[in-house]
């Protein structure tokens, strides 16, 4: 019995004890879970789940221009990505707030333009290997700089969220009311969009632009099946995201899966499990329906 336990522990922890790159990858996942997942919770609550995906694509030309100027440099690609993402976020927000266009159509318009520019730039100069790096990330090859970047972004995210939390919740719940009691609505709105872009950029170094959205949205969507209150919702999604990183890395280590997709697939499995077995999931809802309260 004791021996099986030791074997299990060994199975789960020895890769991280033995290999530095696995430890760094795990630290990267923890940072991503702490920063990106709360952002994902608010994205899903604001019915902007797909917005994250669009923003991730919008980052591409900035990262590509950074790459053109400075090669595979973390700083240049990050700054480029942030500029491109924030430009698209602000342009689409402005168009939605000042013209007849809705947020979704203006965002779609700007991100598609941005994505096309990105693909043109990459195909002009980059080799396919570099494109793969941008699309799928390199969580198993995170260097010091990249870890500091991801950790810095998640620290900044948590601090900013703590400051704009109350207005942000009200902005989602009852925007008219927020407007009637304070003028913080634009700060909450744009502050949140900037955080979303920062986290997508942080995420793309580790998981790639396509998979970075997954660690934001999947845990948030899964946690919704376990609780009906915003605070536990955020806590549960962070735990789920970190757990996905942990298991995903092990899968990638033992059966040689690409790490980014392995992490997101784990998060996907947690989502499906929650959908079926969560307190607000399919099964319990069905059972509860047979035993309703008297009042």
């Amino acid at each position: 019995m004791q021996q099986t336990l030791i074997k299990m522990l060994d199975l789960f922890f020895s890769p991280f004890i033995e290999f530095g790159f696995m430890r760094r990858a795990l630290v990267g996942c923890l940072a991503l879970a702490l920063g990106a997942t709360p952002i994902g919770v608010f994205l899903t609550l604001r019915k902007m789940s797909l917005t994250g995906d669009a923003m991730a694509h919008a980052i591409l030309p900035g990262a590509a221009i950074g790459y053109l100027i400075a090669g595979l440099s973390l700083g240049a690609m990050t700054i480029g990505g942030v500029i491109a993402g924030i430009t698209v976020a602000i342009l689409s927000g402005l168009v939605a707030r000042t013209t007849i266009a809705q947020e979704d159509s203006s965002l779609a318009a700007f991100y598609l333009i941005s994505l096309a520019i990105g693909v043109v730039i990459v195909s002009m100069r980059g080799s396919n290997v570099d494109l793969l790096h941008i699309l799928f990330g390199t969580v198993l090859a995170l260097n010091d700089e990249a870890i500091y970047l991801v950790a810095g972004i998640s620290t900044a995210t948590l601090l900013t969220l703590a400051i704009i939390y109350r207005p942000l919740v009200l902005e989602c719940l009852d925007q008219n009311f927020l407007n009637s009691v304070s003028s913080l609505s634009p700060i909450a709105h744009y502050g949140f969009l900037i955080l979303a872009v920062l986290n997508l950029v942080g995420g793309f170094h580790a998981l790639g632009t396509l998979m970075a959205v997954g660690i934001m949205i999947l845990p948030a969507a899964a946690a919704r099946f376990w609780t009906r209150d915003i605070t536990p919702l955020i806590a549960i999604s962070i735990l789920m995201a970190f757990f996905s990183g942990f298991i995903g890395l092990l899968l990638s280590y033992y059966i040689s899966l690409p790490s980014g997709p392995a992490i997101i697939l784990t998060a996907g499995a947690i989502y499906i499990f929650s959908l079926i077995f969560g307190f607000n999931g399919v099964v319990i809802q069905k059972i509860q329906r047979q035993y309703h309260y008297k009042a």
Partner: protein
Amino acid sequence: MTTGNPIIHFSNLTLGYDRHPAVHHLEHTVNTGELLAVVGPNGSGKSTLLKGIIGNLKPLEGEIKFNNIHPAEIAYLPQQVDIDLNFPISVFDMVSMGLWHKVGAFKKFDANLNAKIHDALHMVGLCGFESRPINALSGGQVQRCLFARLLLQDSQVILLDEPFAAIDTSTIDDLMGLINSWNKEGRTIIAVLHDFELVAKHFPETLLLARELVAAGKTNKVITKSNLDKANKLTKSFKDREVVCCTS
């Protein structure tokens, strides 16, 4: 604040969307302590007027003047369609935001403020609902919840946008009791309503809108057949008039 003094004045006020006026050249004064019903057909600019008062909509022309009150101090009950009732938040937390003027974005809720929230829930008959998520409430309970939030806002001027739409009579009686007690305390109430019987019973003053002001004053003088016919006709005739207005 003494009852009877002007508190809000609409001066040649035009509010609208996309250049189309929804409230057109309105001239009217609301006095402190008034219990005012705003009535009129659909599309006559009632809700628009409230949005203008709280500053959600900038005037296309004219202005709204405030006496002894800042627009940010005015409490506002929005229509329920504007609230995301699926947001994962408890009744208690939702209602607590009525204390925004005390806590703002950062300050914490101390025991005293928490007690106030419990009192407010008690007054609207939502005791025991504190931890229930708002998406498990009925329409009437949501409205009680919003009234509790209004109570906590403790404002001298309270705007209500169709407070009784799709609400049953016993809930209306309870909430109307709250409105009356606010008014007895000298607060000014402006409510958008459709039920003329209710207006005649509870609201001494009425403002009848059809984009333009049709009539204002004592309710029994305002809600007359000839005025209502005029309002309906005016609202209809506005539909295709897309000429630039320059009466000013």
